[in-house]
């Protein structure tokens, strides 16, 4: 019984984690994800801060999804202190979130995951071996950042999104510029969809897991969770349902669902629950190994949605608005939103002075830990007997299929 644990650092993912393969003799018998990211203790940091500071601090949880963290935090805060936002603000926030979706997906697809399919080490070899792929990916990525900058003032940690509104509302000319850029990028995105959908799978087929996504609002927004097992969970009870616990081997809390079945969140989960018929045939029985396909389709949907949002905004014209005034009251708020990697929850409680007394943040990668573990086990079973290095490589590719955002997960 000489079982050996071999740990390998995850690369081309956000944050710090490793995969541990447990070897018994020549056979790999088990695998484990270890998120050893340093905890910044955000939920504790936020306690004691004023309601209008929460989102500014909370968005620093993660850079790739800073816009969606910011919006999630703002929504929860506004709910707690009783602020309603204008339709215009709502549309602009939605636009910013779609921008984040485009940026994050483009980054993952072209810079982080595609190298697995092309057999290169990452952006460095991509630049020399497949320069046009890198350039196309960056061009799409830039569209997402352009949107985030236009609305949020900055691609990372968007400061222009405030409680009750925006600092400065972008003007018509700026939105028209974004519209033109998006129109100019549509063909490229469409080409990429075709290219990615035709990539040969590099992982064995694995069983599909139950999934869960936010619903009840415009794409990526909503007030409840819907699962493939047909459960509906309201925002208020979501945290309890997600049921987080502390476990060894990971600094991110792990969700424990009723029947201990892991649940998967993210692009594939969202598509599973609302699959555009044109693409359904690409996903029959393909599970997590098709995540790249799900992402490129979502990227296309995000571009389309952004275009619609811009049209809506331009139609009514852009009004100069000042943020709605918030008067601190005692209260509590929970918001759900779809981050690029899946369900994100922000929940806060404030005292009568508007000072935060409790904070809870549940992130997609944390939720996905159970699903990743299950997938890893399935992979090892499917590859039983294969060469050790091959299993190790596949295990890392598999984890990358979840596009883990470890800083988010541990926060």
């Amino acid at each position: 019984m000489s079982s050996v644990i071999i740990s390998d650092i995850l690369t081309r993912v956000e944050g710090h984690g490793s995969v541990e393969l447990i070897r018994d003799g020549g056979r790999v018998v088990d695998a484990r994800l270890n998120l050893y990211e340093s905890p910044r203790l955000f939920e504790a940091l936020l306690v004691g801060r004023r309601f209008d500071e929460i989102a500014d601090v909370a968005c620093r949880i993660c850079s790739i999804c800073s816009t969606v963290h910011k919006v999630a935090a703002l929504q929860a805060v506004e709910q707690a202190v009783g602020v309603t936002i204008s339709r215009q603000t709502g549309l602009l926030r939605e636009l910013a979130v779609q921008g984040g979706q485009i940026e994050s997906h483009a980054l993952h697809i072209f810079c982080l995951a595609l190298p697995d399919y092309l057999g290169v080490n990452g952006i460095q070899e991509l630049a020399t071996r497949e320069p046009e792929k890198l350039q196309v990916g960056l061009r799409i990525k830039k569209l997402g950042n352009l949107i985030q900058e236009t609305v949020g003032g900055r691609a990372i940690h968007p400061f222009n999104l405030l409680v009750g509104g925006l600092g400065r509302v972008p003007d018509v000319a700026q939105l028209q510029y974004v519209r033109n850029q998006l129109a100019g990028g549509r063909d490229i995105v469409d080409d990429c969809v075709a290219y990615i959908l035709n990539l040969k799978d590099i992982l064995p087929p694995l069983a599909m897991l139950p999934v869960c996504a936010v619903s009840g609002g415009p794409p990526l927004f909503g007030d409840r969770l819907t699962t493939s097992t047909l459960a509906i969970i309201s925002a208020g009870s979501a945290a309890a349902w997600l049921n987080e616990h502390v476990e060894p081997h990971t600094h991110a809390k792990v969700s424990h669902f009723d029947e201990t079945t892991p649940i998967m969140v993210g692009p594939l989960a969202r598509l599973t629950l609302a699959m555009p018929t044109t693409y359904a045939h690409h996903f029959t029985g393909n599970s997590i190994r098709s995540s790249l396909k799900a992402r490129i389709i979502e990227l296309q949907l995000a571009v389309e949605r952004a275009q619609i949002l811009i049209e809506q905004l331009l139609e009514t014209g852009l009004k100069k608005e000042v943020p709605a005034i918030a008067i601190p009251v005692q209260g509590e708020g929970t918001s759900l939103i779809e981050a690029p990697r899946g369900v994100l929850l922000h929940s806060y409680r404030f005292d009568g002075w508007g000072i935060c007394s409790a904070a809870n943040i549940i992130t997609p990668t944390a939720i996905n830990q159970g699903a990743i573990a299950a997938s890893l086990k399935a992979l090892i079973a499917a590859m039983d007997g294969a060469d050790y290095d091959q299993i190790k490589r596949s295990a890392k590719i598999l984890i990358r299929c979840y596009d883990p955002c470890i800083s988010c997960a541990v926060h």
Partner: protein
Amino acid sequence: MRKLRVAIAGLTACSGCQLSLLNCEDELPGLLEQIEFHYFPMALSPALLEGEYDAALVEGCISMPHEVELLQELRRRSRYLIALGTCAVWGGVAALRNGEDRELLRQQVYGLNPLACETFNPQPLQSLVQVDAAVSGCPPEKDELLRLLAGLVRGALPVSIDYPVCTECRMRENLCLLTERDILCLGPLVLGGCGARCPSMLVPCEGCRGPVPESNMKEYLELCAQKGFGRLTVLERLHRFCPERKI
């Protein structure tokens, strides 16, 4: 010419400074031609430190023992070690409550359950190793990052900035939020270089670039007091990104 050999590492942080580099969509292909990013786990496999580096760009603060080791190893291997971003330079948001007992904070998040890791109060890089240059900002400006890299290719370190956000804010002919609108803007105390991004969009400076050298705290607090902002409110705001009471 030999390519510049660079390591890019992230410690306790949000990866925003590294992402800022990846966000240089127009310039990245050119950069990859001029520079060998040898160690850059976020964008390259494998994560292996090897040989010597002309420069190591390090994002994030230090809050765990394995980060100390990594940082020291990077220092040993690199001609220049550069603190990238506010966390690395000042501690950043992670160090927001450094004044308090970290174990209590930990329990607030993880409960009594002892987490299998040893974390300590987040510290800026210079508390542990010699730092040759710093690029501040949460996140740093793309321009600054590109200039840093272009300079390194020439063997030069960046010239440090010593003027506050207000200077650039005035250059842009913005409305002054502090004097005209009585909004708590940290501009006078905060290091410039961002082009006064936030005030230019009517959002007060939150101080993401850290303190300017020789700021006049006393008079600023006085001014805020006249505008009805209590000392504590101002100080809390001020220490969002630089908790080490350095301002």
